[in-house]
Each structure stands twice: as C-alpha cells, then as structure tokens.
C-alpha cells in the first residue's frame, strides 16, 4: 500500500519545466549557534514534485555515476507513486547506508553530474530524495531486516566499522554468512561518528545504521583493537574466521612539518573533530572532554574535513574562522554544498595561501602564523595545477587555534602486525581491485586503507566489491568465471569510479 497519494506523472516534455525543489534549511545566523542539522529535509509533497522531474531515461546515466549501483530511476518512480518505504527498500537492495549517503555523498560529482537534465536544467535532486526516503522509513519505524538466506556456516571478521566495513558486513550477512565487526573506538561507525559533525550527519542516524546491521545478525564489538588485542592471523587461526576484511581507514593525521607545529592550540582535524563529535566536547562541562576553539581559528586544507572543522569552530564560538588553502577555489575538493554552507556562515576563505611557520607565546600557545602567497603553475600528478610559492610574499595572521586538515596516511597497526601483507609506499594495503583480496589469501581490504583518504561512497563501493570477493573466496567459487564476463566487467567499472 502506498504511504502517500500517487503523484500523477506529467507528460515528459513538461517535466523539465518543474523547478528543482529547494531543500529548506536552518538560517545561517541561527545555525552557527547550535549543532543541529543544517538542512531540514524535503517534505513528502516536495519529494514527490522533485521525483516527478525525472525523465525516466531508458538508459539511466545516473546509475553509471553511482559507485554502489543504486536503482535510481526505480526508487524515484516509487517516490512519485507515494511508495516511500518501498523506495527506501529499493535503495537498500544495493546500498546499506541511504540516510548517510543521502547526506554526505558528493552527488554533484556522481549521479547528479550525469543526470540528463544537468545539461540544460538542474539535475534531479537524487541525494535529497535518497535522504528523504531513508528518513521516512526510519521515522515511520518501518526499518526491517530482509529475510535472510540459510546460514552458510562461514564466519567473517570485519575490522573497522566505517562505511566500508558497514557495507561489507551488511552484504555478507545478507548472503548468509556470520559476521563479527570489530571497532577500536567505543562507538561503531568510524569516520561517520568521529569525523562528520552532528550538523551534517546526526549521530542518531549512524546509530540506526548500526542497529540495522545488528538486525541482520552482525555482531558488533567495540573498544577492541585488532593488531593489539588479536592480530589478523589470530582471528583466522584461533577465532576460526574464514576471511577477514580490513577497513580501518586512513587514520594517521598528516602534519606539515613546519616550525612550531606542536604549539598548544594546534590540532589535527582528527583530534579536533573527535573531541567535538565522538566525545561531545561541544557540550563541555556536561561531557568531560574539553576542546579549545579560540577567537581566531585557521583551518588548513580544502576538503570536506576542513569545512567540517571550520564550521565546528564557528559553533564553538570563533569570531574569525579562516580556511587557508594553497590552491584556488576551483581546486577545492570539498562538496559544493559544504563550501556554500561555510560561506553562508561567514567563514573567511584565504585561497592561494600556505603557512610556513607558527609563532607562540612563552606558555607554548600559538599566537600567529606566518603564511606565503601561492600561484598556480603546471598541473601535477593529481591533474590539478601545482601551487608555487611567490617569493617574498610572507605575511602574518593572528591565530589562537589552528586545525590541520591536510589529509591522512594509513595507520600502520595492522600492516605491522600482519606478516606478508603487502603495502605500497604510502602504507596502503595492496589489493586485487576486482576482488579486494590482499597479498594474503583470505585477507581482504577496502576503503581508505587501500585508496588513501577518499569519500564515504567510494569506501562503500569498495565494500560491495569486497563482499563479492569474500563470498566467492569462502564458498570456493571462482573469482572470475570465464562464462561470467559480464560480472567481472561490472566490478571493474565499479572500482574505477
């Protein structure tokens, strides 16, 4: 039965005349005083109107743009028909994390980028619709585990409970395997709980996703450090796991190795965000963990993590919150939405600027940073134009807090304690990208520990590939059957995105 009245489809030629439905959101001046979510979500009516914009293309390009192969036209049609819960379940056939992905995926770079409407009009708001149906299902109390197949008797350990781990665990559980998920922190969700702020991804949503895993029969064990308490080999030899998936993320914060970087008030983004998000330091002293965000806060970097950090600092009371980025606005890797949100909230962007040293006071607190201006030269390996220092352009900015958000390296804990596990020169685990199996049979990996810092959806995509690889491995079915070229091809194109 429909959850809502069916929306009569317009003739296709009229669909392009419907404007994209705007997402209602908290006023910028209000929202910088709280940690509540910025966009309020679409109303059912607006969702149906937005869904009615879909041209229902015969060859839906949007699906090619989705790393986890969501049936986008299928779920959008269900929204138009008012079948919101059915729409949510349609997404969940391939994506365990719709409420999360609807909020944090860079849709403008993926599904919405290739939407046919994008050429002449604005794309269908696929991300907003995804978020809408996932929220609708959850708020209606309608989240249910699908019927599970009979047990295969195989047992798989998932190390790390971030987006890659969640996806692997959900997929494997739905194939009938017993899954145990290990998390080093006290709360499951990985970067979704320690890294992404409440105002962008409320923690109750992550908690609901973890609950969903439990409904699928996944055992979730927190405060358990693999590599210290049990090694990966011990999991396989002593705990009887048939395969292990490593999704431990890019956990080691990068610093710039410049003078004064260990002064008080200088944080890695991981620490700053972990204090605020995971430990709830924004509620100090109600919560015990403190955080320091002064009046003049500089955040280094141009990614989503930098945007999250700078917007957190405003909510913690910063008067001047700067983004210091060594390239120009065009090269910033952050989601467009987050850059817009930061601008609306009064973040000051200092482009083509790079710090060279920090100056502190006698008590060891940072007081100022010396920066240089940059200009863009030839493209580098990343395809972006390389920033070059303009000699003699040095200037000083007064700061009392600095957040370094210039990326992460891979945490060495597991590679160090797993003999024979091959890594590349950045310490990332080497895998076969069709199966996600590492150099050690039975040990698989995916997400940031393989690619270096990337996005939630790419990690989820890797998780899907790994789940298939693990399934084939533990069931003894061939990885690449010659008579199943289509399957192999699909996986290949998936990992490229």
């Amino acid at each position, binding site marked *: 039965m429909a959850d809502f009245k069916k929306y009569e489809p317009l003739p296709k030629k009229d669909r392009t005349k419907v404007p994209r439905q705007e997402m209602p959101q908290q006023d910028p001046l209000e929202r910088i005083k709280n940690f509540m979510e910025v966009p309020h979500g679409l109303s059912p009516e607006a969702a149906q109107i937005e869904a009615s914009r879909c041209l229902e293309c015969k060859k839906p390009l949007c699906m090619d743009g989705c790393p986890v192969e969501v049936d986008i036209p299928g779920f959008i049609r269900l929204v138009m028909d008012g079948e919101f819960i059915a729409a949510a379940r349609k997404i969940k056939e391939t994506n365990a994390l719709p409420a999360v992905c609807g909020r944090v995926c860079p849709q403008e770079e993926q599904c919405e980028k290739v939407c046919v409407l994008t050429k002449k009009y604005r794309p269908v708001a696929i991300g907003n619709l995804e978020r809408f149906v996932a929220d609708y299902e959850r708020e209606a109390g309608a989240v249910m585990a699908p019927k599970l197949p009979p047990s295969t008797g195989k047992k798989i350990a998932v190390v790390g409970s971030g987006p890659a781990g969640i996806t692997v665990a959900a997929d494997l559980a739905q194939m009938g395997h017993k899954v145990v998920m290990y998390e*080093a*922190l*006290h709360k499951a969700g990985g970067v979704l709980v*320690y890294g992404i702020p409440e105002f962008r991804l409320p923690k109750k949503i992550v908690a609901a996703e973890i609950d969903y895993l439990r409904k699928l029969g996944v055992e979730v064990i*927190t*405060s*358990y*450090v693999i590599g*210290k*308490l*049990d090694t990966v080999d011990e999991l396989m030899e002593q705990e009887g796991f048939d395969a292990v998936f490593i999704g431990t993320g890019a*956990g*080691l*914060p990068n*610093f710039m*190795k410049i003078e004064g*970087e*260990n002064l*008080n*008030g200088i*944080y*890695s983004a*991981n*620490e700053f965000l*972990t*204090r605020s998000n995971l*430990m*709830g330091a924004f509620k*100090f*002293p*109600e*919560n*015990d*963990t*403190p955080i*320091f965000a002064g009046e003049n806060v500089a955040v280094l970097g141009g990614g989503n993590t930098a945007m999250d950090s700078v917007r957190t600092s405003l909510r913690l009371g910063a008067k001047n919150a700067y983004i210091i980025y060594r390239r120009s606005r065009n090269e910033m890797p952050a989601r467009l939405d987050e850059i817009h949100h930061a601008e609306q909230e009064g973040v000051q962007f200092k482009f083509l600027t790079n710090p060279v040293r920090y100056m502190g006071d006698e*008590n*060891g607190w940072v007081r100022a940073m010396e920066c240089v201006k940059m200009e863009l030269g030839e493209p580098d390996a990343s395809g972006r134009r390389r920033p070059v220092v303009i000699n003699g352009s040095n200037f000083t900015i007064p700061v009392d807090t600095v957040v370094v958000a210039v990326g992460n390296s891979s*945490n*060495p*804990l597991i590679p160090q304690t797993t003999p024979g596990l091959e890594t590349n020169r950045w310490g990332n685990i080497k895998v076969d990208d069709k199966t996600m199996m590492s150099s050690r049979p039975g040990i698989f990996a995916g997400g940031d520990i393989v690619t270096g810092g990337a996005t939630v959806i790419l990690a989820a995509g890797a998780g899907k590939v790994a789940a298939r690889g693990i399934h084939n491995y533990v069931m003894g079915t061939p990885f690449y059957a010659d008579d199943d070229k289509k399957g192999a091809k699909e996986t290949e194109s998936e990992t490229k995105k």
Partner: protein
Amino acid sequence: MFKILEKEELCDKVHRFRIEAPRIVRKAKAGQFVILRQNESGERVPMSIGGLDKENGILTVVIQEVGKTSASMNRMKAGDFFADVVGPLGIPSHVEKFGHCVCIGGGVGIPPIYPIAQALKEAGNKVTTIIGSRSKNLLIFEKELSEASDQLLVSTDDGSFGTHGFVTTILQKMLDDGVKIDMVIAIGPVPMMKAVVNTTRKPKIKTYVSLNPIMVDGTGMCGACRVTVGGQTKFACVDGPDFDGHEVDFDEMTKRLKMYSRYEKIAYEKFLDDEHCRLGKQVKQMDKQDR
C-alpha cells in the same frame, strides 16, 4: 563493561583498582597502557598498567585524583563497572638482558615501574629500583617493588623516610660511588624524568622514559599525544610510550600537558561543588529523620 573486583586506597587521593579484563591481560606486556572510560559522558583517559595478574586475568591500574574524571573514577567501588577498558596499547618496554638495570618511579609513576621491574628481572637482569615521593605517607607499592627488585632504594622530599632528597639524589650517589649501571628506565612526573636524564646524560647511560601526554584515541588516529624526540614529531601512543630520554623535548611536553588546565579546573570545581551539594542534602535529610 569491565568490573572492578577490588579497590583499595593506597594513600590520600590515590587508589588501586583491580579490574576484570582477561583478554587484555592475556595480551598485555610491561610498559603498555590502557584507555579507560568511566561512562557515556566520560573522557578517554590513558592509564599505565600497574600490574598484570595473568593467572586470574586481572588488570591493575592506579588512579590519582587530579581532576574531575579521576575524582569521579576514584569514587567508584568494587562491583562497579568501567564502560570501557581498551588495550593493550603502545609498544611494550624494551626488555632484554642489559646487566644492571635501574628502574626509577616517582609518585603515580611508581606502579607502572612494577611490571617492568618484574620483566627485567625475569630476563636475567640485576634490578635496582629507586622510588620517591614527597613524604612517607605518599609512598606506594613499596612491598611489591621490594619483591620484584634485587634492591629497593627510597627517597622522600621531606626526609620522612629513606634518603632525604629526590630519586636523582640516590642515582647520583650510585654514579659517584662507581656503581656500574647498564640501563635506566624512569616513569614519573615530567620534572623527575627530566632530572633523571640530566643525571645519566654525561655518563652516557641508556635511559628510557615513559611519556604520558594528553591522548584521545590511543591508536594513532588523533595526533594529540605528539612529542618531539630527537627533533622529530612522534605519537606517544603508537611510537611509544617509551622513548630515549636523552632525546625528548621535556619543555615542550610540559607546556602541552597544561593545554586544558583551565578547563580541567572548571570541571573539577563543578564536580566538587555538586558533590558537596549532594552530601549537604543527604546530611539535611538525615537531620530531619533524626528529629
């Protein structure tokens, strides 16, 4: 959830907790640490391992009340539970046959010296342990350490017990007397560790110190615990906690340890106020009942 099996006051504001943690104890080695979290709103606090009962799976930690979190933990009783005990974390202390090892502990740095002294002894070393405190009544783990070491020497700042002076007073005297020392490991307050490495610098005795900077996750993710060692930034949680003492920038570490002192004061005072209020209410209630 991790059950407190026994709790004992060692001296004013210092308590020993024996916690049921068989999996951690099975894996832990001397020199490693754990992270404790009391409850949902609690902090993650790194604590040195002050004893490993491998047979019964019991972990010992010694907690000194210095702020809100430690005060609140020290109000817990046997039978209560810590929400989380994570570990073992960090690299175990370097244990091999050095010859004559001198283990030095000061204040709440004394308990973690105990499993290290035991391990060094087991590895065939001669172990001399020096412990120091401000005063006799603050001296802890004396019995344990006298059992674990070939020789136990004690100093008190006020001369109320043992040698009048600091642990370095004893160490310097040993050097002056020509005692051959092959390795020193020191755990305690930063000024004590700094004084120890300054004593062993000239005679070039290999000296390890166990650092206890501010930490959040303890697995290398947050970078809060960075310390400068030999001019390089290291993360104490994954590169340590033990480092070559002669290479450590103690002055930077001292400043970093004070980063949250203002906040710590606010939280501690609020905690003591609240506790005072609660006690006051209880007394009033009892007064009423008496009348």
